[in-house]
Structures are given as C-alpha cells and as structure tokens.
C-alpha cells in the first residue's frame, strides 16, 4: 500500500488546521453559511435531512486494517455506530456533528486518510478495479497510476474550480470491473505489440440526468504520458466546458456538443504542447510508486487445495459461499474474498463499527493486512490462502457478513435515497430491502444467475440505475413516490444505458414488477447459461414490456 511521505503528512495536517479554523469562524458567526458551505464541501462535509454527512475518501478503494479500525472508531465515537460504503469506493457517516468534524479529520489524518475532494467541482477520488493487483486476468496493477493521479490532482491549482465534478477510473484487467466507461475519464491499462504499458483512453462517460457511454479517444497512450494527456483533457474541459448551466456542465456534454472527433483534435493539440514538458513521468517515478503496491510475500500454501475440497464437501453453505464470493487469485494457493454488505433484507453498503473491527482483524490475520472497497458497495479481502477460507468464512458468518450473493439478484446497489439524502425524491433502501427479501432464497438466486439491480432515489443516479441490468429510478409524482424501471444497462466492457420500459410503479407494486421482469427472463432464456443481460440483448425490451403492461394496442 502507498504510505504518506513527510510532504503528504504535512499537507493533510495543514488542511485539518485550516478547516478547524473555518469551523470555528462559522460557529462564532464570523463567516456566513454562504461563505462556509464551499469550504466544508471541499472537506467532504454535506448537510443532509437529519444531520451533517461526512464523506471520507478511500483512494482507489484500498484500506489497511489500521485504517478500517479507525473508520470503526469514528463510527462508534462520533457517529451512530455504522458507516455506509459508497459507489465511489468511499465511506460516508450520516450523523457527525459539525463541531466534531475537525477532530474526526485529525483522527483520519493520523492513519493517512482525509476527506479532501470528496465533494465540489474538482477531481474526485480516483477509483480502480477492486481486484487490482490480484486478479488473474490482469495486465498490470492500476493502483500505482491511480495514486499518481491522486497526488497530481490533490488541490491542483488549475483544476480546483472546474465547471463540474470530475471522476476518473482506472482498470488494469481484461474484464472491466471499474465501470470505466461511465466516467469522465476512463483508463484501461494494456500492453502494445512491443509489450509496453499504456492506456486506452475514454472520455465523456457519465450517468445523472443525461447518461452517456464514454468515447474511446486514444487506443494507446504510453504510461509516461499519463499526466500530460490527462492535463490536456482537463485543460480543454476547463476552458470550454459549460458554466452557464450546471446540468450541462459535465465533460460528457462538451463531448456531445463539440463532437468526439473535434474535441479529440483539441485535446491532442493541447497535448502536443505539453508532452515534451515536465509532466512526462520518468520510469523511476513510476517504479517508485509501483513498489508500494508490490504483491506481498505470499508463502506457499498448497495444502489448501485438498483441505478446501474436503471442507466444501462437508459444509454446503460454505461451498456455496466459495462458489459465489471467492475469485481466482494470481497465486493459485490463494483466493480473493468478496465480503457481501448485502445481507438478505439489509441496507446495501452499511457496516457497523463491530463489523468493521472484525473485518480489520480478519484482514490482519488472513489477508496481509489489506481490504478493498468495491464500487458495488461490498468489501474485499484480496489475499486469503485457500487453506484459511473456512476460518475466514466462519468468522464472517458469525457477524452476518457471509451472504453468498456476489453478482446475484440480491447484490443490489442502492443510494441512500430519501431516507437520508437532501437531493433525493424517493427512497431507495426500502425498495432494495423488499426485493432482497422477495428473492432471498439461495436456490432461487442461483437459478436466476448473474443479475445486477441498481437503484437511485433521484436522477443524479448515485445508485447507478442507468447501468443496472435492471435499473430502478425513484421519482416524486404528485407528492408520492413512483419507481421507473430501466432494462438492459451494464457497466462492463460492453457498457450500455438501460431503456425505460414504461410508466412507473407505486412503492407497493415495484417488487411485483421486478418479479414479473425476472420471471419473463426465466421463461425466455435459451438455457440457464444465458444471463439476463445476454437474453435482454437478444430479445430486446418488448417481451418485458408486454409482461409488465400487456399487449400494445393494435392500430385500428
């Protein structure tokens, strides 16, 4: 893992002191709310329905046990005993007092964490594949590049007041698990024919009220040019992105209105001016950052093969969990464990202080002190020996953390919605809970297979509904909640935006409607191997529309 150097420590501590002074001045009345609001937002402090909300950055989703324990401590001491892991691989606290937030940030700084740039019109937390460094299908670890981007973008003087927020994601594996095509910039690490590392560069993806899939603007960017090219993109966006209308201010609109070809030409022209300059990354610098992310020394644990086979035979629930929640590691003696934060009927992404402490203990004992946060609101133990899986499972199961539903229908993404969020129009969490309960049977979930449901409580789409195989968008209509269904979205290598199928459903009818969609899929799939999204792409929306709304009226 990356470790702060003296500069990082001093920088974060200085920011905490600045913020403490800002809070003091606000509370004393020296500055107004209009003056204070942008300052608190730059430190991740929002005001929501019931209280303030603090969003803490988890850079590219990587945490140590020490950091996780500190997150648990903050939940226990300053909040209500839990935190909420988000689709940006961050954690949010829902109940901190404003007057406590400087102390919280001070405690975070002690473990090399902060909340800088988790809000505002700046470059947000850079996200990465949550299986980075361990995935068997990986070309290279994306985290060193995400860390380079983090350092470069932190309080970048030119890019601190962009037209709108700006999100970057990096993946280094063949299979995109970081949803890069839904980002302002998506970077896909690859090797060229000469075996050199570089990136395929995508820009202009995004969700919100105008969802768009990112456009590929460069097939191969040498790794040394990461910052020069990113700077060129940001500079063109900063100059020409719209500032007259916040709903048209993201780079996706600039791409759309300018045209991909023209905008790419502008970016390339800007890059020509930059590429020979100081932004070129020396190999030694890349190597220095990369060394922080070296694979830990994993001892040979080949005894796990036979042990695991025997334990799977003996314990059916454990076998089901291994099947669903353990993924191949680069080292065949090890596995990558996904800890589900989606217990049946639970709140997606929430973890209690006790659970966080337990996960920290397990990571320390069994996963080389490392934990990941996924953008699908789960956690990951990246290096667990096969021989230790049963022990890890037993400890997780004792804390409701061993639900075997990774990538299944109850592994639902949901934003906080109207239960917490000041922007929301409808609740998300109760919808997720009811669907989870309806489809809670393990057998039924396995029969349905891979199916991603994503729920947002407003058009800002924090719950990624546009790219859910089944997406649900909560709206307010005549003072009541109503839920629109979209079908056919996905956020992988073949990213697509879901299509709205028709009129919305009342809260008491939405779960029945989802069941109708699922039953329709089960009835038309060619085999159990044909997943929901594959079937949808084969047959289109009409069979689902007919099932939901009846046959379309025939023209007279």
């Amino acid at each position: 893992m990356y470790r702060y150097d003296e500069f990082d420590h001093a920088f974060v501590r200085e920011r905490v002191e600045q913020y403490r002074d800002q809070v003091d001045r606000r509370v004393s009345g020296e500055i107004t709310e209009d003056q204070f609001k942008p300052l608190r937002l730059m430190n991740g402090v929002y005001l929501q329905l019931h209280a303030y909300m603090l969003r803490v950055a988890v850079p590219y989703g990587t945490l140590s046990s020490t950091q996780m324990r500190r997150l648990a401590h903050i939940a226990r001491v300053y909040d209500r005993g839990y935190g909420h892991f988000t689709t940006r691989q961050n954690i949010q606290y829902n109940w901190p007092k404003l007057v406590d937030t400087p102390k919280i940030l001070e405690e975070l700084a002690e473990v090399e964490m902060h909340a800088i740039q988790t809000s505002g019109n700046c470059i947000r937390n850079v996200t990465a594949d949550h299986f980075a460094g361990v995935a068997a299908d990986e070309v290279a670890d994306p985290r060193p590049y995400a860390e380079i981007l983090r350092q470069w973008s932190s309080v970048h003087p030119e890019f601190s007041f962009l037209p709108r927020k700006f999100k970057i994601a990096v993946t280094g594996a063949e299979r995109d698990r970081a949803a890069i095509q839904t980002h302002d910039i998506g970077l896909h690490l690859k090797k060229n024919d000469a075996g050199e590392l570089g990136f395929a560069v995508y820009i202009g993806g995004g969700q919100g009220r105008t969802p768009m899939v990112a456009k590929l603007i460069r097939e191969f960017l040498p790794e040394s040019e990461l910052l020069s090219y990113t700077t060129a993109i940001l500079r063109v966006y900063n100059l020409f992105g719209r500032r007259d209308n916040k709903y048209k201010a993201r780079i996706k609109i600039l791409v759309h209105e300018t045209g991909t070809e023209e905008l790419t030409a502008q970016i390339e022209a800007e890059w020509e001016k930059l590429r020979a300059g100081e932004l070129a990354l020396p190999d030694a610098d890349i190597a220095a950052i990369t060394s922080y992310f070296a694979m830990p020394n994993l001892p040979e644990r080949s005894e796990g093969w036979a042990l695991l086979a025997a334990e799977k035979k003996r314990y059916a629930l454990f076998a089901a969990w291994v099947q669903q929640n353990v993924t191949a590691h680069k080292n065949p003696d090890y596995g990558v464990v996904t800890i589900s934060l989606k217990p049946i009927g639970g709140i997606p992404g929430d973890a209690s202080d006790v659970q966080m402490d337990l996960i920290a203990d397990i990571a320390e004992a069994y996963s080389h002190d490392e934990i990941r946060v996924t953008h699908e609101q789960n956690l990951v133990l990246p290096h667990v020996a096969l021989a230790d899986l049963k022990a890890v499972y037993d400890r997780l199961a004792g804390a409701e953390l061993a639900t075997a539903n990774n990538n299944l229908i109850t592994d639902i993404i949901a934003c906080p919605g109207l239960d917490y969020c000041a922007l929301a129009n409808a609740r998300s969490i109760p919808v997720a809970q009811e669907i989870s309960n309806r489809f809670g049977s393990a057998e039924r979930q396995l029969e349905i297979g891979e199916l991603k449901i994503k729920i947002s409580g407003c058009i800002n789409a924090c719950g990624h509904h546009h790219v859910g195989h089944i997406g649900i968008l909560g709206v307010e209509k005549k003072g009541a909640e109503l839920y629109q269904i979209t079908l056919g979205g996905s956020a992988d290598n073949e990213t697509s935006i879901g299509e709205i199928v028709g009129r919305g459903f009342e809260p008491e009818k939405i779960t029945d409607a989802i069941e109708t969609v699922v039953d329709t899929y089960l009835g038309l799939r060619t085999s159990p191997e044909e997943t929901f999204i594959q079937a949808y792409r084969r047959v289109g929306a009409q069979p689902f529309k007919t099932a939901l709304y009846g046959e379309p009226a025939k023209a007279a």
Partner: protein
Amino acid sequence: MALKVLTANRLSDGIAVWLGADGSWQETIDEAFVARHEAALTGLQDAEKVAAFDIQVVDVTLVDVEERDGHLYPLRLRERIRAAGPTVRLDLGKQAETLADDAAAIAA
C-alpha cells in the same frame, strides 16, 4: 390556506429543528408554532427572513403540515422523514427518542 411551520437544521450538529411559539428552535415538530391564518403566516415569513441571519441554524424553510390525531403531519414525505428519522432505521433520529419514551412508559 395550508398550515405552515418553519423548519431548519441546527448549525452545530445539523439536526432538524422547528421554530417554537416562544421563538426558540425545538427538536420535535410537535413543538412547532403553526401558522393557521394569513397574519400568522406573515409573522412566520418574517421569522424566516430573520433566521437567515441566525447563527444557530441553516437551511431555513417553511413547510406545509396538517394536524392528524393531535400531531403535526408534514404533507411532503421528505419532511415527514426529516421529522421522524430514516424509515429504514427506526432506532435512529427523532423517532428513536419517541420509541425509547414509549418503551420506558411500557416498562414503568
């Protein structure tokens, strides 16, 4: 006219509060001063303008309510959730205190 109350979030901890009849900010909606006619509404609108400069609170706004079973009931779901707490965590927010009171009363 719809009944109205004045609500805000407390600056120091962000919790939802409502303006009481004595001009102080109250932690439960049932303690709110209710504007039932135009003259009272004008008074509440004046209070809203003044509260914009009150360092105790932020995000001051008027909301529509009605009376149901002796309690104030906001017409918008958003305001009902603010007044009670998250519908998915009944142990949190204002409702938790009510539930605790109920539990204590039952236990007594």
